[in-house]
């Protein structure tokens, strides 16, 4: 399994990287952790002629607070996210999700930017970012723009990113202290993509749901924001009937493929189970203030 030939570039700044991508057009691809791209190159499902390695760009590797946002550099690795005290305190769902991705070796190299830019519906971070209302910061030849995670995914491996654009950071509005969160992922084994997974971020006020977001992984051609399911819960106290109604509403928007993980009907059923578990777990965490 040998990838095709390519020219290797290692720019030191975002501007150099953008210029290289602009020069080489569709034939060039950014390389971050390489743990989605290199396997695809080995299978010759991807054969870029130019690889623009982002690892020399220090500016992409920081995690910081900026106003009400937590700003995560695109080249921050999953291992770095797991070890970050700032993320543990302010965005625990990111740590909780990163720990469910692949295995330790892959998490040392795999980046958050690569995970969300890849566009594989099996990637776990996109649904979490949608749930958090994150915006992706993209820099291209025409300047910098922000793209809401909710509008980024167009289809399998198709995103709103233009060929010469680089994702430089993910901006996440910090949820209020005491919010509840959960990422519930059903998988066959370590290192497997989700059979079905659900992300939930909610806040409670006097025992009732004040705000709620639900998103789903690997249950359609893109990550799915289950807005109707979430809206139906506002004002409820998450009684079993409320949770079931939300799970049913979420199941209704899924369109899973049948593969080794199971036929579509099974995966849709599991979507409901994951949503119910995630709501229950998030509510417990909110109530405990954890």
């Amino acid at each position, binding site marked *: *399994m*040998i*990838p*095709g*030939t*390519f*020219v*290797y570039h*290692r720019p030191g700044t975002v501007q150099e990287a953008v210029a290289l991508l602009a020069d080489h057009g569709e034939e060039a691809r950014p*390389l971050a952790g*390489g*743990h989605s791209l*290199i*396997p695809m*190159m*080995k299978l010759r499902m991807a054969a870029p002629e130019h*690889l623009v*390695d982002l*690892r020399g760009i220090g500016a992409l590797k920081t995690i910081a607070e900026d106003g009400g946002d937590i700003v995560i550099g695109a080249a921050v690795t999953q*291992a770095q996210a797991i070890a970050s005290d700032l993320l543990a305190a302010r965005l625990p769902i990111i740590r909780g999700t990163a720990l469910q991705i*692949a*295995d*330790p*070796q*892959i998490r*040392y*190299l795999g980046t958050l930017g690569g995970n969300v830019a890849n566009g594989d519906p099996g990637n776990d971070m996109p649904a979490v970012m949608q749930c958090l209302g994150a915006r992706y910061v993209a820099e291209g030849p025409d300047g910098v723009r922000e793209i809401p995670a909710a509008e980024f995914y167009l289809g399998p491996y198709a995103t709103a990113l233009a060929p010469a654009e680089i994702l430089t950071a993910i901006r996440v509005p910090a949820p209020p202290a005491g919010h509840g969160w959960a990422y519930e992922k059903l998988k066959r084994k*370590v*290192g497997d993509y989700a059979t079905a997974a659900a992300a939930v971020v909610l806040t409670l006020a006097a025992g009732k749901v004040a705000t709620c977001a639900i998103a789903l992984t690997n249950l359609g051609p893109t990550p799915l924001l289950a807005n109707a399911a979430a809206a139906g819960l506002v004002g409820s106290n998450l009684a079993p009937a409320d949770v079931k109604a939300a799970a049913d509403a979420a199941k209704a928007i899924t369109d899973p493929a049948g593969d080794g993980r199971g036929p579509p009907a099974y995966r849709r059923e599991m979507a409901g189970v994951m949503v119910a578990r995630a709501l229950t777990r998030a509510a417990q965490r909110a109530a405990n203030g954890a």
Partner: protein
Amino acid sequence: MTDQIPISITVNGRSVRRFVDPRLLLIHFLREDLGLTGAHIGCETSHCGACTVDLDGMSVKSCTMFAAQADGATITTIEGMANPDGTLSVLQESFRQMHGLQCGYCTPGMIMRASVLLRENPDPTDDEVRQGIAGNLCRCTGYQNIVKAVRHAAAVINGRPSQEAAE
């Protein structure tokens, strides 16, 4: 054809400079260019962990990285794990004593991964060892004795009597 590029890497304490094809995978560089055949190729698909090496203190699967990406890095492979006098390191000796291997194919990857795990978490529980080596597959042992070997090594390193006995 694309041009070869220069890389300089420290491998097991030795500094190495070479020209490589950009598409050369790190595992092939280690095995074929440097003759270090301790890191194994099991799956070639980033699943089995037999190719795990220590790169700047991280465990990485060298089948899923280009040698070019390792430019400037410090790498340790299983060949660099023995004590300077040639005797087995604590972790290697623990695998021997606890029967942490049968065919041995996964062992270089297991030991390289376990050494980073113990650096980050010097006294892991059984569960933490299992989570920590979740990216390394073994077709022979059923993992019991591998977990014991890692915990035994932790006990020796921490100067505690070991609770472990091989099964």
